[in-house]
């Protein structure tokens, strides 16, 4: 028998993910050995340090212009983990955004003990629940988040469908759990978790079926191989169609595109707000990172086959998200529908293929900062212990807490895409790339959708500044350094990317070529 050829592993290239996963396991150990009172500090420092280290590793790799795969056998690259420009850039984006999201998870001053409970299933107000609420609050959320983040980082670098599936499950399972751990409005939270889990499980099933079809068509799960097969395979093309459709359903579900968006408003509303921020910011990056890779690397040769249907979905997502946002009365639902509409704009970037990869990544980064900061503000406006998510309760906030209102106004204007904010920079470069790819129709739909969407944003601004506050208007809790940092970082990024986006545009320009295309 021949000796199996040695597998060469690029440990340096895997470092960003390894750091995060090791930290996640350490976090589990912390739960076991560190006394309850000290866990929060240890967990948060561990998580932040790990993500910072991971980001540093990404920066080094990106700077070295690493363009390789993590695994190879005798010089032949294996596609399972691909360390190319887009993959690394998105890993870096996920690392930065999740640091911010973790700080928001760690917020303890606005509500004593935080927004999370360890055992959400305990009946509210029972003796056991009261005992639980006297404890310092759940810290399992940090290792869980790290696992999810590691999964996202793997998702955006996965070069074959199988690795991608493992990553998809790895990022999803902790999120299902996190959604259900809310301390307040527990039933809604658990409903959200269940809904997300069930629909997510369906999506995963679709994914696996789709993968099987594509394997049948191409004889490989490697994306580059599937692309090659799109030109040369003799298998019935129907296998390709079904496979692409099913994979697309699963990924568009994660990306919250119409008509696979149904879970989004409920889950965004029901989940604890810091988790919502994590989903709207980081998971969106991961989902679109995966979509970009699948369509650019794996399916660009069959673009004619999916172009029309994806265009229809993009149009439905842009218009549907915007129109549904108009009627919302709950700030979290409003932001959820706005995130759906934004998924539509991002889909335009996916459809435009190669030209638009860089600007789609720029959009993801810019949007992530803004939306996390917006949810951070939402988590600060409270009626007593509970978040005041109904829009009517926000009336006149500008009079009672002008600072918060100014910040939220900037974020709303950024989401509406006004100049001097990151929203404009992102829309400008995305639409420019789409026009370069001759997608004029989609750009016009995008513009119309932006105009519709401006109305709900503007209504929030009207409420903040032009309405009189109710006598029992909610209070804005002074944020602790944690949430304060989140809001400050988000707004700073929103403005910096609005006034001086040049540096990031240069980075995404350089990092916009997928390996294998």
């Amino acid at each position: 028998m021949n000796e199996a050829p040695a597998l060469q592993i690029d440990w340096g290239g895997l470092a960003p993910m390894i750091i995060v996963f090791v930290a996640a396991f350490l976090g589990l150990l912390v739960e076991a050995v560190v006394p309850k009172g000290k866990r929060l500090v240890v967990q948060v420092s561990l998580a932040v340090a790990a993500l910072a280290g991971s980001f540093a590793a990404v920066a080094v790799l990106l700077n070295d212009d690493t363009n390789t795969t993590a695994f190879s056998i005798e010089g032949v690259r294996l596609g399972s983990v691909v360390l190319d420009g887009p993959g690394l850039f998105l890993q870096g984006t996920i690392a930065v955004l999740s640091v911010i999201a973790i700080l928001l998870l760690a917020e303890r001053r606005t509500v004593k003990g935080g927004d999370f409970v360890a055992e959400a299933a305990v009946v509210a107000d029972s003796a056991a629940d009261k005992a639980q609420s006297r404890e310092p609050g759940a810290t399992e959320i940090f290792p869980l988040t790290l696992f999810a983040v590691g999964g996202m980082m793997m998702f955006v670098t996965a070069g074959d469908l199988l690795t991608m599936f493992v990553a998809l499950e790895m990022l999803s399972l902790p999120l299902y759990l996190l959604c259900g751990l809310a301390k307040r409005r527990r039933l809604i939270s658990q409903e959200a978790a269940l809904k997300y889990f069930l629909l997510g499980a369906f999506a995963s099933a679709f994914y696996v079926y789709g993968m099987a079809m594509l394997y049948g068509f191409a004889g490989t799960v490697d994306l580059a191989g599937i692309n090659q097969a799109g030109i040369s395979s003799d298998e019935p093309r129907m296998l390709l169609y079904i496979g692409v459709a099913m994979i697309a359903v699963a990924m568009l579900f994660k990306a919250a595109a119409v008509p696979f968006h149904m879970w989004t408003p409920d889950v965004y509303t029901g989940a604890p707000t810091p988790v919502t921020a994590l989903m709207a910011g980081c998971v969106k990056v991961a989902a679109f990172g995966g979509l970009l890779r699948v369509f650019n690397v794996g399916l660009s040769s069959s673009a004619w086959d999916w172009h029309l249907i994806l265009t229809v979905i993009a149009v439905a997502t842009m218009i549907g998200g915007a129109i549904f946002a108009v009627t919302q009365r709950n700030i979290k639902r409003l932001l959820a529908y706005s995130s759906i509409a934004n998924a539509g704009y991002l889909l335009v970037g996916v459809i435009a293929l190669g030209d638009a990869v860089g600007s789609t990544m720029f959009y993801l980064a810019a949007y992530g900062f803004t939306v996390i900061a917006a949810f951070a503000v939402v988590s600060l406006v409270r009626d007593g212990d509970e978040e005041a998510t109904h829009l009517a309760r926000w009336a006149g906030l500008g009079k009672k807490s002008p600072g918060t209102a100014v910040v939220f106004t900037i974020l709303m204007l950024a989401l509406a895409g006004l100049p001097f904010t990151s929203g404009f920079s992102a829309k400008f470069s995305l639409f420019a790339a789409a026009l370069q790819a001759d997608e004029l129709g989609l750009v016009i739909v995008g513009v119309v959708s932006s105009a519709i969407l401006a109305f709900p944003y503007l209504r929030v601004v009207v409420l903040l500044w032009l309405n009189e506050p109710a006598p029992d208007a909610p209070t804005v809790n002074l944020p602790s350094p944690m949430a304060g940092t989140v809001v400050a970082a988000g707004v700073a990024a929103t403005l910096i990317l609005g006034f001086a986006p040049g540096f990031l545009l240069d980075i995404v320009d350089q990092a916009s070529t997928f390996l294998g295309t």
Partner: protein
Amino acid sequence: MNELPLLSALVAVPLIGAVVVASIRREQAAAARWTALAFSGAVAVITALVAVGFDYGPDAPWLQFTESYTWIENWDLSLSWGIDGIALLLVALTAGLTPIAMLAAWRDLDAVKRSVPAFFALILALEAAMLATFLASNVLLFYFFFEAMLVPMYFLIGSYGTGPRRQYAAVKFFLYSLLGGLFMLVAVIALWVNNGGVFDWQTLVEAEPMADGSLQNWLFLGFFLAFAIKAPFFPFHTWLPDAGGAAPAAVAALLVGVMDKIGTFAILRYCIPLFPDATKTFAPWVIGMSVIGVLYAAFVAIGQTDLKRLVAYTSIAHFGFIGIGIFAFTQASATGAVLYMFNHGLATGLLFIVVGFLTFRRGSAQITDYGGAAKTLPLLAGIFLFAGLASLSLPGTAPFISEFLVLFGAFTDNEPVAVLATLGIILAAAYVLWMYQRTMQGDRNPALDEVPAMKRDLTVREKALVAPLVIAILGFGFFPQPLIDAVGPAVDNTLVFITGEPQTAPSDNVPAAEGVSNE
């Protein structure tokens, strides 16, 4: 030439002023007012320096006082400023009208619990954005300020406006403008994609005109829609009566007097030189819209019951005249249109301010709440009549010259249009005089005697702030030549793109014409 970066200063000074005033504490209203006035005064002084240093000769380059600082290289976005005769007039109008509007609103906020520093800071921010749009010589830079100015105006209308419909008006204004702006954005991006990533206005104008006719048409429509909403031209006008009716009178003066001119200014600055063929293609349609606008808005104005809405409708009629003047493409009519922008700013600005005096005293803008008011307010009534007559273009007032030039130029181009538009003058006489008669003359409304303020004629502050406007309207009415000379070269430079040959300016100043002749 002048070494000082005067144009940068024109944008920076009010912007810094806005930040300074905004940081003043709410209780120190007086300090905020005076600081804001000082900053807007400084802008007026800088404008005077620019006007003195400006080269009015026919051999001068199109844009003067040019400056350029790279900002975002990836998009060819730079802080490029430059001024021509048309922009000079509008900059002067902005710089002059802003301090007057501030003085007019001096005491408006005493009765309501609103932040005075925020109000004046917003006005300064608005001034900065408006000046920047006149001075920008980079298409994307123009777009930035074109959109950004919506924010201060939105808050000025929505937060400081009057009447129950102010929020509705503010939102309608914002969304209408934003929609137009977004279509313009598509055109801006398409322009950028198609010319290989150039936004510099000078470079674009000097380049060969776009060969692809249908692309040019679409781009023109994208730009024009935004400008037609801004101006506003019929049928994109419906936001203006709401916004003008709800805004505080001083803000309405700035809205109609200056901000709306950005639309017509931008047509001259961007649509004509960048898309000359498309401009010619669509000219008949625009002229048709303008004529309908002149007549329709005048009829609707006659039927208004609210003073501010009435004045807003008169402005829509006036913008019809400006549209006719620009798109008739004769030197006389285009010069007239430019002067119209300036003179309309003076006359309608004054009219809004006087209406503001009235409504502040009476606490209502409904015409039926007045009647015979001239008995106790003779001076105010006099100024009101003067402003009204100026806005109907009575000979001897500045607007007469511009209206005459527009109609004269239009007559040589298209007689029926000129004849129809002339009907607008008659209608203007009807709505102005009837408005005056119903509010100031006739039987005295007994309710007026119960309002003590209605017995206080113009105060010193009010006299001081209307005086410059009255003087300017009369002065430019009798001596319009300096204005005509100032805008002449710029108008010629612009019209070359349509007529294809320089009318007065030598060809070396007209790069595009050179490009054509080299072919």
